């Protein structure tokens, strides 16, 4: 009977892990943008591998193999968020159309120091000081502000096309 209880626990772990992997794969194929897909893949990287390796550890019992599996879990839990971070950095630094997918204000604010949460003029000043190049950045920021209505119009158009 004890054997069967252990089998039930292991089966529960495996089913959980499979659910996690399935959710990750579905999310990675269905979501529309890389950042969202990254979120889905993170679930597979953490929950999936944890469930599988927990099941295998329960199956094996105490020993060298279990210790190595624990090392794998720790390693993946360290590295998976880090690799997600680097992926998002690639996207952030190389995608010129990032603002189409995200909130424009959010992205502008995240490229500035944390104190920049005031009004528009204060923001532009902080940004100018931060990058040490006043004329250029002020111009860039103001142009972004002027551009904002156009962008929202294009987004509306796209939504209409989709509908």
């Amino acid at each position: 009977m004890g054997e069967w209880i252990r089998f039930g626990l292991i089966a529960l772990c495996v089913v959980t892990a499979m659910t996690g992997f399935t959710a990750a794969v579905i999310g990675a194929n269905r979501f529309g943008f890389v950042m969202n897909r990254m979120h889905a893949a993170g679930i597979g990287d953490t929950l999936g591998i944890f469930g599988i390796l927990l099941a295998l550890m329960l199956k094996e019992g105490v020993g060298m193999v279990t210790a190595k599996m624990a090392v794998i879990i720790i390693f993946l839990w360290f590295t998976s968020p880090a690799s997600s971070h680097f992926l998002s950095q690639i996207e952030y630094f190389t995608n010129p159309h990032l603002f189409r997918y995200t909130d424009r204000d959010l992205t502008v604010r995240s490229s500035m120091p944390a104190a920049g949460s005031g009004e528009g003029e204060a923001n532009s000043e902080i940004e100018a000081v931060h990058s040490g190049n006043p004329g250029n950045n002020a111009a860039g920021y103001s142009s972004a502000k002027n551009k904002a209505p156009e962008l929202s119009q294009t987004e509306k158009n796209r939504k209409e096309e989709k509908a």
Partner: protein
Amino acid sequence: MSVESAYTLLFEGALLWMGLLLLIMLIRAIIGPRVTDRILAINMIGTMVSSCICILAVVLEESYLIDMALLYSMISFVTVLILASTYIAKTPSRGRFASEVAEEVGQEKKWLKAYQEESGKEMP
């Protein structure tokens, strides 16, 4: 039905299901519109393959396969890291927020075009 056959059924079912998931993930790796999609898919495939190797190590009772699983996950992490550093460093935006730079370059082009139309001279 004994416990052993139940374990075999469970683990083989898990392996088969994961093989299916790997194939579906490969679709994303092929059609992914951007580089990051592909890297993400490859990273995900690496994770799933290393868990497959762990299952195989227990099912076949070959403990050395665990080392291979650890190595596989390690290599996939190093891959993502190196691709990130190299790819960011080689982009023309030079480590700045890419859409800002694109905006500026687009502005320059617009100004240059306007200047050309006004003055009638050739572009540099």
